């Protein structure tokens, strides 16, 4: 225990410390404010399933799309040293394709849904390839490169369904966006778990982590060690493309319709923020996917807390900004270093005292 404590503080703050502390503080704050905030109940939904309910479920469920996008964004950030700001628009495109394919068949079966998802995936990956090519081959700053799709993405989504916002009626879609009968946990949460596991498997069975970090830290050296950095960057965008398709389809399934104007609106900035709160350098290099996931939950907890405090939705953004400023400053290298030094002195000092005690 003592060893762990020391490791946490003496070498500067660990990457995960800030997001975990932030999350813990938010939880404690809510417990003090309203002891029933985190109570979890079981209720029956419209379909008569017994499902979990409560603020905590709302938070975890609501953060699903954000968490999935943050995973992919972490990889792009690490490899390219920049961010993709078109994820929201691309998700709208993927969602539109998803609905278009679903609407094309008369009866929606499981197979149709899989096909629709695969189509959405392929389209999202094609757009990701476009972004990735601009970044990896033409060496355009990621934010500038993805600004193009950010600007025109929702127009493209608009064309796909001819300007309409079609509704999909299907128990399968309701199950994806809500609950699978017999399982009390919201399906999007399960999808997040599956995605996180997929990332884990990916990093375990390939050396993608090492290569991505090498490319992000020192592209020249990576190239001279035989790493194809163009490919690694493209790959990171393609993986983000899959994440975009998944979260787009979740978003569509929640409502049972596609609204290209509002689906995952403004999520790109929250995604980037989640990556940053997770302790990942936005300049690329070393990364922790887990940090970004926690970052996503921190943002969502903050949002829901503010709503629970009856802050109007217009004001929420301002309050959010304040908390985020605090978090980013606390997580900054300057503060980390000073705090690290301070803790080192404390640990060091107490050790000296204890040694003296033994001698005496």
């Amino acid at each position, binding site marked *: 225990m003592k060893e762990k404590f020391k490791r946490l503080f003496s070498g500067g703050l660990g990457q995960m410390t800030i997001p975990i502390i932030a999350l813990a503080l938010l939880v404690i704050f809510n417990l003090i404010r309203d002891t029933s905030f985190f109570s979890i109940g079981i209720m029956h939904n419209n379909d008569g399933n017994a499902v979990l309910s409560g603020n905590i479920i709302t938070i975890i469920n609501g953060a699903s799309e954000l968490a999935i996008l943050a995973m992919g964004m972490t990889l792009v950030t690490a490899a390219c040293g920049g961010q993709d700001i078109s994820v929201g628009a691309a998700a709208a495109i993927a969602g539109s394709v998803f609905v278009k394919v679903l609407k094309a068949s008369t009866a929606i079966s499981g197979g149709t849904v899989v096909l629709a998802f695969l189509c959405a995936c392929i389209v999202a990956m094609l757009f990701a390839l476009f972004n990735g090519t601009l970044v990896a081959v033409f060496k355009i700053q990621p934010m500038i490169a993805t600004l193009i799709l950010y600007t025109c993405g929702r127009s493209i989504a608009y064309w796909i369904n001819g300007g309409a916002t079609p509704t999909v009626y299907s128990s399968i879609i309701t199950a994806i966006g809500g609950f699978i009968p017999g399982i009390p946990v919201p399906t999007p949460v399960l999808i997040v778990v599956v995605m996180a596991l997929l990332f884990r498997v990916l990093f375990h069975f*390939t050396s993608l982590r*090492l290569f991505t*970090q090498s490319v992000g830290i020192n592209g020249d*050296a990576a190239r*001279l*060690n*035989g*790493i194809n950095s163009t490919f690694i960057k493209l790959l990171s965008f393609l993986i983000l493309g899959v994440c975009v398709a998944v979260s787009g389809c979740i978003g569509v399934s929640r409502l049972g319709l596609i609204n290209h104007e509002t689906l995952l609106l403004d999520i790109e900035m929250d995604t980037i923020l989640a990556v940053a709160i997770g302790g990942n350098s936005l300049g690329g*290099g*070393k990364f922790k996917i887990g940090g970004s996931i926690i970052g996503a939950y921190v943002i969502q907890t903050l949002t829901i807390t503010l709503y629970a405090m009856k802050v109007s939705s217009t004001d929420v953004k301002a309050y959010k900004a304040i908390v985020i400023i605090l978090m980013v400053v606390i997580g900054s290298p300057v503060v980390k270093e000073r705090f690290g030094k301070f803790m080192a002195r404390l640990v060091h000092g107490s050790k000296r005292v204890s040694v003296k005690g033994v001698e005496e």
Partner: protein
Amino acid sequence: MQEECLLTMRQIDKRFPGVVALNGVDFTLRKGEIHALMGENGAGKSTLIKVLTGVYQMDGGEIRVEGKPIFIKSPQDAQNHGISTVYQEITLCPNLTVAENMFIGREDSVWVRRGKYEKRAEEILMDLGVPARSTQQLGDCSLAVQQMVAIARAVDMKCKVLILDEPTSSLDDKEVQMLFSLMKDLKSQGVGIIFVTHFLEQVYEVSDRITVLRNGELVGEYLTEELPQVQLVSKMIGKELEELSNLGETEEKNSEEQEVFYEAEGLSSSAARPFDFSIRKGEVNGFTGLLGSGRSESVRAIFGADKVNGGTVKIKGQEVKITRPIDAMKNGIGYLAEDRKRDGIIADLSVRENIILAMQVMNGMFKPISRSESEAFADEYIKVLNIKTASRETPVGSLSGGNQQKVILARWLLTHPDYLILDEPTRGIDVGTKLEIQKLVLKLAEEGVSVTFISSEVEEMLRTCSRLIVMRDRYIVGELKGSDLNQTQVMKTIAGGEA
């Protein structure tokens, strides 16, 4: 005696996580002396300088300037106390004029009176004999003049202590002489100069006193005239000198009958002119020539590091295509790049990850080296190459230059190459490690590995190589072996008969 002391540092301690960089080091600088600070890489020279200039905060000890204790909190603070530094890499702005560079950051009012500054700058430059005009763009001056402008700036800021950190590493002989006469001038004006360098001859040429550090501890302070060069070296590396001279005897230079491993004909790249080259199994050869002669560009072409334009390449008689580094690696070629920081280390990654990198790339993305395997590899090479690191998980960027170089060597050794290209593997690293690397090269050759060794120090190449390829103005101008392998012959060939 006490009054003469310009700067005294007593019992300076500085610790980094897992490493004691300075342990109770004393240093004294007197008025009007040039004091050489010597030591291997990792001895603590740069740490001591950084403590003195406020880049690092010391963990213990005392600094006095002219007898008064001072606390240096920042580089700005150090300047206010009259301590100025001119770093190895020039830290001025090349796109501003000389005068602007001299006064940047210390204009007394927002209205810059260009004329006034230019006049003042002209006076100082004249005074110090710096051959530059104040209205000239700094980038147009030679490196030596830029160095001198940096010194002029420091002098004008009323500095009492001037630190020159490797000021001569990119200067030619004539420029070094210019710099030395400037240093002697300043010395006669009572400025104390701390001179950090790797060049022993230069230390004996200008310095009055020498302080030697080793492993973060003070070895001693000596009068230059009382310390023979041989003793200085043995104090720096902590070994007796006989060990140093033993190296040459064990080497075998008979690889003539071995098969040719690599052969290139008319190989050219975006940076290298067409050239022919071949190397036998177990042979150590070298490319030599002045900086910019094309020696690095040639070996980069062999490895496919720059865009290859043409030529045929054969490995063991088989024609192969090498256009990218990965092609070369798959054909058993390893390449240690000249610029360690830019092309070698992945600074934020651990020693372990840096060591396994090339091997992992060759294995491919879908066959990751397991954690335990990579730990075993890292531990093995940390031991074999005697890499000084707090642990295998330490970020490689926090190691000293010599140890970083060993990590990159380990990276390539782990791939068990048939042909290893080492471009300046010993640059900027200490004498002891240099020797270890030379020994390693000879051992590899004995095991049948072909090695191309490039070094700016001809003497070092003569000791290791059995054949030297001499380049001038991007062309191969000669090949020396056997009895022709001596310093005079090499110099003659490099200079092209004009010498």
